[in-house]
């Protein structure tokens, strides 16, 4: 099996260009690639479009920031696709001030849009959002008498994902609910960088247990920062 380059978090962050669209895995910072996120904050490419289910937490009162919240606070995004920003006051502030465009996408639709992007589909039909603001500007298609929204695929220049364990070929295994969006994001970007907690030799992961196939992964980073 062909091994993938193992790079530093800084090298990973260096692959993101100004203006790129990036996907970042995680759910409220659980299962996010925290080592790479810190490097992206330090190298600080700007004008990015983010696709992520949330922007983790940023509480103005306590000053506590988690996960992707560090990149929002660093003002690196011009646009954010997310399903929930309720626990990040800075994202809400930037949105209300017109500094960052936020497009709210229902969480299940976001997952399917990314899946469609990675699976070569022209979009998906979902009943979610029919009769709501989410419907605005979208094609409504009726199948067997039921209305569905046509949701178009999402892809990215770079996906930053996180796995519990990876082998040097890029086969990945996730833990608990930390799998979340990492699995679909691994399929939907031109460049996929997987941060892994445990890096093992090829052959050490049972092929039956692989959740993300190595073919989706371009670079591997060994996790250093495991807190949020």
């Amino acid at each position, binding site marked *: 099996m062909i091994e993938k380059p193992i790079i530093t978090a800084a090298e990973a962050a260096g692959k993101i260009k100004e203006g790129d669209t990036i996907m970042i895995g995680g*759910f*409220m*910072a*659980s*299962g996010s690639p925290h080592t790479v996120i810190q490097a992206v904050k330090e190298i600080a490419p700007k004008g990015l479009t983010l696709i992520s*289910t*949330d922007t983790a*937490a940023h509480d103005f009162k306590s000053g506590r920031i988690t996960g992707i919240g560090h990149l929002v606070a660093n003002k690196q995004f011009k646009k954010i696709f*997310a*399903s*929930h*920003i*309720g*626990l990040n006051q800075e994202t*809400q502030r930037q*949105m*209300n001030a017109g500094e960052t465009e*936020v497009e*709210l996408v*229902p*969480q*299940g*639709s*976001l*997952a*399917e849009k*990314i*899946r469609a992007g990675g699976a070569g589909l022209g979009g998906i039909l*979902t*009943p*979610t*959002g*029919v*009769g*709501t*603001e*989410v419907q605005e500007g979208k094609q409504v298609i009726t199948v067997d008498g039921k209305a569905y929204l046509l949701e178009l695929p999402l892809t990215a220049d770079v996906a930053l994902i996180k796995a*519990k364990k990876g082998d040097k070929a890029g086969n990945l295994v*996730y*833990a*608990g*609910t*930390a*799998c*979340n*969006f*990492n*699995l*679909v994001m691994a399929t939907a970007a031109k460049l996929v960088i997987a941060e892994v907690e445990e890096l093992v030799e090829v052959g050490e992961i049972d092929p039956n247990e692989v*959740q993300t196939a190595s073919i989706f992964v371009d670079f591997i980073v060994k996790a250093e920062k495991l807190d*949020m």
Partner: protein
Amino acid sequence: MEYVANKDNIAKRIARMFHNGDVVNLGIGLPTLVGNYIPEGVTIILQSENGMMGLGPAPEAGQENYDIVNAGGAPVTVLTGGCFFDSATSFGIIRGGHVDYTVLGVLEVDQQGNLANYKVPGKMVPGMGGAMDLVSGARVVIAATLHFEPSGKSRMKRHCTLPLTAAREVNYVVTDLGLFEVVGDRFHLREVFAPFTAEFIKEKTDADIVVDTDCRVIEL
């Protein structure tokens, strides 16, 4: 009649709606309380939208594992026989009709079964998270809410004024005054929670309420 807000009564009543083996998704906040009141002898399976079946209680202090969290991002545990899956699968479970009940919080709910709970334009825009998928996909949608807003107005309306989370999907509304079913563009009062009365509820609610002939008074 004096009204004192009582979230626990809402949770208690909803907890009695489930049957053995039902798959249930509880929203964050008030709906989470429902888990505390599941009757003895009834086992439900809790689904968490971020990717698990068999959601267990919060771990003891010091035992938190941030790879196992609930839909609010807080550490939880997984029960024996539970399992994990990715977000696309999780929402396939939700939209695909494999979740029996979803219990969600409310900003406004109206007699057409419309629910608004994700946005107050210009004030609060947290986002819908998984709520829109849950409401459109679950077999039975239960809106759980204190009957009144802090201002004293009822959260049950003739027509929602806030942006909708979903149109015509709510089946039941359970407040701290009673249990209502949405049928034919009306709230049907099925149960009144003592010491309140149907008259009190009708008087204090700005919506069309049909009091069923078999409407029961329940002690919670």
